[in-house]
């Protein structure tokens, strides 16, 4: 039993991502979409929190949203994986529930 969490807001503007990570169970997945993809950037003040989360939670970003914002996948921190919309659908299907952090 595990949950897919989605986060769609920039972690530099909004606390949603931090709150989401604080409520994940081991084995959950977090998918960052829309402005949320900035949460996957390496070398920021958030990287340590994210690296710590990655020990127990799978981290994903929606690649089309990343490309729209001009962020090269090489800029993602280690442990964050890109998925396309088909991958998004698979994540929803393979987790027991989806919780959207709006």
């Amino acid at each position, binding site marked *: 039993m595990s949950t897919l969490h989605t986060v769609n807001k920039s972690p530099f503007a909004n606390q949603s991502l931090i709150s989401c990570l604080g409520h994940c169970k081991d084995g959950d997945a977090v998918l960052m979409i*829309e402005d949320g993809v900035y949460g996957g950037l390496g070398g920021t003040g958030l990287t340590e929190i994210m690296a710590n989360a990655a020990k127990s939670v799978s981290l994903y970003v929606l690649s089309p*949203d990343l490309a729209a914002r001009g962020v090269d996948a090489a800029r993602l921190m280690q442990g964050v994986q890109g998925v396309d919309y*088909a991958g*998004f*659908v*698979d994540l*929803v299907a393979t987790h027991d*529930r*989806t919780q959207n952090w*709006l």
Partner: protein
Amino acid sequence: MKFGVVVSEGPYTHQAVDSAYLFVKAALDAGHEVPRVFFYHDGVNVSTRLSIPPQDERNIQQNWTALAKGHGIDLVVCIAAAQRRGLLDENEATRQGKDANNIAEGFRISGLGQLIEMGIQTDRLVTFGD
């Protein structure tokens, strides 16, 4: 698998409804069913047929109408949220004494019970909002 989808923000202003559209298309492509999409909060604004986006931009309402037609998706607009925001179908307009209506083909105005029902009858619920 059956997916229910909620759209909580209006067109053009937030990306939510664009993300929902691409997600639904991808779910259908993967062989899943999407019996219903429920439009709530400012999401009801997606259903207006009076929108005229610039020629070089997507037409969000027309895209949804076409997708729903092609795949038999029930596009439900919450009546309470719609009334607040000025979205009316012909029946509602007549009943409320309004001189115009603005709901596009393929969208259906109904109650919040349809949202709960979708939650009960689908295997997964995904919300796109702000």
